[in-house]
């Protein structure tokens, strides 16, 4: 990070310090907070006017729980919990203010399973991380596009939503034939369990872009402290740029941060390898979120009325910050 860079923001002395409580996962898809918190960029850019507190989580739904309960103000999070959080609160609780990462989902097959074409998936066992999550929806949509169906829909592909950790064990044991998983699991399946890459999800999307991580903020906080949110976005953008410029140094920092947060290290090599399949970007890739929502709704995961995502994005501040840095705006 720009260690020596001067603080761009002057803070008025009379203003009371606001506390910004930021949630994230100690995981490779949350690169910006890992790096930016560790090297101090966030604290520096937020300045004296805002005190930063961080909380780490293991799962998206618990982030939403915390946001609903008013225990955090902003968080890095995957698209699906963001959607359910928005829908469940009737559009009241949260806004997506930026993207953070794109890509990073792999469909890996076990060599012994002899899967060479989509049709070979018939009568095979495939796992996804969680029923109704991004990868689960993507797999089911992919099956449908290739004329296959999961067992519960009357087809012959067994789709088993199970935790990523179990997937690795089952893959090693040879109990499952394929898995549609996010990073770093895709890389781990390949490196540690001898899996074969069958499909990189990027190949299914225009420009290879689909959103993996968003930055969300609670609607109330955005109303009250737009200035703080703006500075958060600046820190986010700055860190994103730095990571893209210095991937190896960033991987070192991220690995260190993960170890500090969780007490267990994720090797630098694994972080680097996983990031090869990811792109750090502020663009929330809005069309991919919409498409994913539509697929999920069609598969029956989002209730009985078609979800309305009209106000889910609040990108004005992001575009303002991007403009200040001379970067092109993003669209919703």
């Amino acid at each position: 990070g720009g260690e020596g860079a001067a603080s761009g923001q002057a803070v008025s002395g009379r203003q009371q310090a606001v506390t910004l409580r930021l949630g994230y996962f100690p995981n490779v898809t949350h690169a910006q907070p890992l790096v930016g918190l560790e090297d101090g960029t966030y604290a520096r850019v937020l300045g004296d006017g805002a005190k930063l507190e961080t909380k780490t989580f293991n799962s998206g739904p618990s982030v939403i729980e915390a946001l609903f309960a008013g225990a955090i103000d902003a968080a890095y999070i995957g698209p699906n919990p963001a959607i359910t959080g928005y829908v469940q609160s009737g559009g009241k609780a949260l806004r997506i203010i930026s993207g953070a990462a794109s890509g990073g989902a792999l469909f890996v097959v076990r060599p012994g399973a002899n899967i060479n074409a989509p049709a070979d998936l018939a009568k095979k066992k495939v796992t996804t991380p969680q029923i109704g999550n991004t990868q689960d929806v993507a797999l089911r949509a992919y099956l449908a596009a290739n004329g296959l169906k999961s067992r519960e829909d009357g087809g012959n592909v067994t789709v088993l939503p199970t935790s990523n950790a179990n997937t690795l064990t089952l893959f090693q044991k040879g109990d499952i034939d394929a898995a549609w998983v996010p990073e770093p699991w895709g890389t781990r399946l390949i490196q540690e369990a001898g899996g074969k890459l069958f499909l990189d999800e990027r190949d299914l999307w225009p420009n290879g872009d689909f959103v993996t991580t968003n930055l969300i903020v609670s609607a109330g906080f955005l109303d009250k402290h737009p200035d703080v949110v703006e500075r958060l976005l600046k820190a986010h953008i700055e860190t994103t740029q730095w990571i893209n410029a210095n991937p190896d140094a960033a991987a070192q920092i991220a690995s260190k941060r993960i170890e500090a947060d969780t007490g267990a290290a994720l090797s630098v090599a694994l972080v680097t390898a996983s990031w090869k399949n990811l792109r750090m970007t502020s663009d929330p890739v809005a069309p991919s979120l919409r498409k994913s929502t539509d697929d999920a709704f069609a598969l029956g995961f989002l209730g009985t009325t078609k979800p309305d995502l009209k106000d889910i994005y609040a990108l004005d501040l992001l575009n303002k910050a991007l403009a200040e840095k001379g970067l092109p705006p993003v669209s919703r």
Partner: protein
Amino acid sequence: MLHPANREAMTPYQVFRRMTETRAGQLGVFVLFLALLVAIWQALYSLQVWPPYTLPSPGSVGETLWRNTENGRIPRAVGVSIRRLAIGYALSVGAGITIGSFTATSRLADSTVGKVVLGMQSLPSVAWLPLAVLWFGLNEQAIIFVAFMGSLFSVAISTNSGVKSIPPLLRQVGLTYGASRWQMYRHIIVPGMMPSLAGGLKLGWSFAWRSLMAGELLFAGLGLGQMLERGRDLNDMSLVIATMLVIISVGLVMDQLIFGRLEHWVLERRGLSSK
């Protein structure tokens, strides 16, 4: 039950107390109590103490309950969970009683196996998930195994302390009539530990039940644990609370049908009051 004439002179508290003298009255009081709890809940909701997406209204939870009952999801989940529980728990009761009475009657076993059992009891159910997957793969057995391990040690421990709390005089009765080791178990140890075991079995059951909820997270294979997780995953508090209510009800029904009776029966024939 109550003479109307008496009623007038009684305070509401006395009326309720009187009601609890009969089984039907107890049920009535309980239902009234539940109604009171629901009323408080509705009040909290109406006062908007918490936003509605963190505390849904009783009405919306009721609606979720009804919808999922009607479309068969809740009955199916309950059926699946209870089946798993029944198997896992039955196995753990059998094995637990065996281990527990063994460790309680042999000092050597107590200071080896017994100590390990004590330690194992503190393992959370999630610790068994990797092993379950490893040994059984993703299937019913794996889930049942988690429920089994969840309650095994607690049953063993309560059996152990149940055996140890048998008055020595009762053992001596068995001994003086020349009971063999097996006869001691059959005629003294097992019946003698019943009062204390009854409570232990009840707690063991809730260990099994809670572990089952954890075990059902192994993979999405129906069951109440999965339904709860689904509610959390979708941040659907109505579904979460509806599932919690179902879990509580199953717990209560189990207790009334099995453990309450067991305990009452054991205490009653010993002349220990159940009041």
